[in-house]
C-alpha cells in the first residue's frame, strides 16, 4: 500500500450528504419540540442557525485544509465574551449564561464531532484545541452550581453534547491525542 487509506471521493460526498440529511431531521425535531412545548420562545431557530453556521465552517475548512479547531476555539471564546457583555449592558438578565453560551458550546462541539468523524486522519493538529474546547464546554456546570441559570435544559444539553464529543474523540483519535499532547507540551 503506497498511501494511507483515504475516503474515496464519492464515499466522502455521500457521507457529507447523509450528515446534512441528519441535521435537517434534527432541525425539524427541534422545531417541532419548540412549537409543542415552548411556543413563546424561539430557541430552536437559534440552534438551527448555529447548525447551518457549523456546516458552512466545516465544509469550508475541509476544502481549504485550514486548522478549523483553532478558529472554532477562538470564536467560541470571543462570541461568548461578547454575548455576556451585551447581556450585561442590556440589564443583565443572565440569558447569556442560560441560553446563548450553551448554544455556542453545542455548536462548537457539533463542529468538532463532525471533524472527528470526517477528518480524523489529520487530527493531530486539532488535538490541543479539542482539549481546550472540551474543558471550556464544562462551563455550563459552573453556571448551574453558581445559580446563574434560570432554565437548565440548554445547559444540560450543552454538557451532553460535549460529553458525546469527548467520548467519540477519545475512541477514534486516541493515538493522535497522545502524540499531540506529547508534541505540544514537549513531553
Amino acid at each position: 500500500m503506497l498511501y494511507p487509506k483515504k475516503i474515496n471521493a464519492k464515499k466522502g460526498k455521500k457521507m457529507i450528504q447523509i450528515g446534512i440529511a441528519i441535521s435537517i431531521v434534527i432541525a425539524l425535531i427541534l422545531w417541532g419540540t419548540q412549537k409543542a412545548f415552548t411556543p413563546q420562545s424561539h430557541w430552536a431557530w437559534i440552534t438551527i442557525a448555529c447548525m447551518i453556521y457549523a456546516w458552512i465552517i466545516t465544509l469550508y475548512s475541509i476544502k481549504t485544509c485550514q486548522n478549523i479547531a483553532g478558529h472554532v476555539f477562538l470564536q467560541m471564546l470571543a462570541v461568548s465574551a461578547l454575548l455576556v457583555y451585551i447581556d450585561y449592558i442590556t440589564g443583565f438578565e443572565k440569558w447569556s449564561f442560560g441560553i446563548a453560551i450553551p448554544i455556542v458550546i453545542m455548536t462548537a462541539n457539533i463542529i468538532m464531532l463532525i471533524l472527528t468523524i470526517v477528518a480524523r486522519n489529520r487530527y493531530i493538529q486539532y488535538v490541543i484545541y479539542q482539549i481546550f474546547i472540551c474543558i471550556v464546554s464544562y462551563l455550563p456546570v459552573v453556571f448551574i452550581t453558581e445559580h446563574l441559570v434560570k432554565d437548565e435544559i440548554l445547559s444540560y444539553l450543552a454538557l451532553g453534547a460535549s460529553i458525546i464529543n469527548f467520548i467519540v474523540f477519545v475512541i477514534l483519535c486516541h493515538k493522535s491525542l497522545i502524540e499531540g499532547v506529547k508534541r505540544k507540551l514537549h513531553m
Partner: protein
Amino acid sequence: MKNMEEKQNLYWRRLDNSAKIFPLSVSKKYSTVFRISCVLKEKVVPKILEKAVEKALEVYPFFKVKLKSGFFWYYLEENPKKPTVEIESNYPCKYIDPKNNRQYLFKVTYFDRKINIDINHVLTDGNSATNFFKEIIYTYLELKHEKNFEEEIRLTRKVEYTSEDSYLKNYNKKAKNNASSQKAYILQGKNIALGAISVIHEIIDFDALKKVCKEKDVTVTMFLTAVLIYAIYEANYKPSHGKKPIKVCIPVNLKKYFPSTTMSNFFSYITVEAHMKNLDTFEEILQFVKLEFKQKLTEKEIVNTMSTNVKIGTNAFIKGIPLLLKKMLVRIGYVEIRKYTTITFSNIGRMGIIGKYQDYIEEFLFMIAPEPVEKIKCSACTFNNQLVFTFTSILDDTKIEEIFYEFIQQQGVPITRQSNGVLEIKKSREEK
C-alpha cells in the same frame, strides 16, 4: 537581550528570481508544492528518519530556513528550530502551513515503507530537491543498517553547492519576449469534492519504452508529451469541442545549459503549443511535438524565456512596489496568468542512486500540485528499469489517465497502475 543578538546574527538570503513569484501567489489553492517519495523495501522507522533529516540538514543548511517578509520582497532566514517528521495523513502536495510546520518550507512524512518530502518551490527546484532528498535517504539507510554501510559512513559524501541566483548571472538583457499571447485550452469537468487530490501512478517498463521511442526516433519526454496531448484530445478536448490550443508546459533544468552549482531554483520551461485543427492522429501529434522540441529546446530560445522572466523580477518599477501591494496585484492576476497553460509535464529523469543503497529501494515517485486552472499536472522520474509517470488531479474524472494507460499498453510496453484511492480507476482487460 541575548535573544535579540542571536536573532540579528541569523543567516539570511534573498529569494532567487523564480522564487519571488511563489510566495506572492501561494495560497491553499495554489500550493506551489511538489513531492518526491522513495518506497523502500522495508518499513520506515520514524525515529531514525527524524535523525536522518537532522543530519541531512547539517550537510545542506541551505534548507534550514524560514520565509520572512521584507518591505519589497520576501526573504529567507535561518530557522533554528528542529524539523518535524510526521506520518502521512494529508493528500500529497498540499499547502505547507509554516505555522504548523515549525516555519519550515519542506515537510518530511512517512507511511509504511514510503518516505516523502513535500517542498515549497520557494526553496528550490526539483533537481536540487532530489539531491537533498537523496541525502536524507542515504543517511537513513546508513543509520538503519550501520554494519552494511561502515565504509560509506567513514567516507563523507562530497557536497559542493552555492545559493547564488544563477538567473541574474546568465540572463541576456537584450533578449526578446518569445511567449505566445494566445490563451490555452483549459481542461473541462467537475472538481473532486472537498479539496481531495487524486494520484495515479503509471509504472512503465523503461527499457521497452526506450525501444519504442528509438523506433520512432524521439526522446522519452517527447513521446510521453505526445501521448499526453493525444489523451487530452481524445478524453477532454474532443467531447467538449475545444477550440484553443493544448499547451503543455515542460520545465527545463538550466544546469544542463549553464555551469551552476546553485541549490536555488534554476529552471526555465518550454511550451509545446498544439493547435488541434491540424492534428488528428497520434503520429501527427508526435511529429509535431518532435518539431516543437527541436525549435524550442535550444539555448537561444531558453535564454529568451528565462531572460523575459528575469527582466520582470529586476524591473525597477516592480521592485519599488511595496510587498503588500505586490501580493494583492499578483493574486488578482494569477488566475489569468495560469490560463496560458493546459497542463504541466515535468520529467526529472533518472534518480541516480549510489551502488549499495539501491538494494534497499523499490521505487521513486515524483508529483506536482494541481491547481484550479491546471486541474491535472503530470510528472515522471526513473529508477532502475521503472519510469513512474504520475497524474496528480483535482478533476473528478479519470478518462485522460485511462487513455494514456491504454495507449502505452497498445504500444506493447508493460505498464501497471497504482493510485491513492480517491478516484476509482477502471480495470483494463489485462488487469482483470
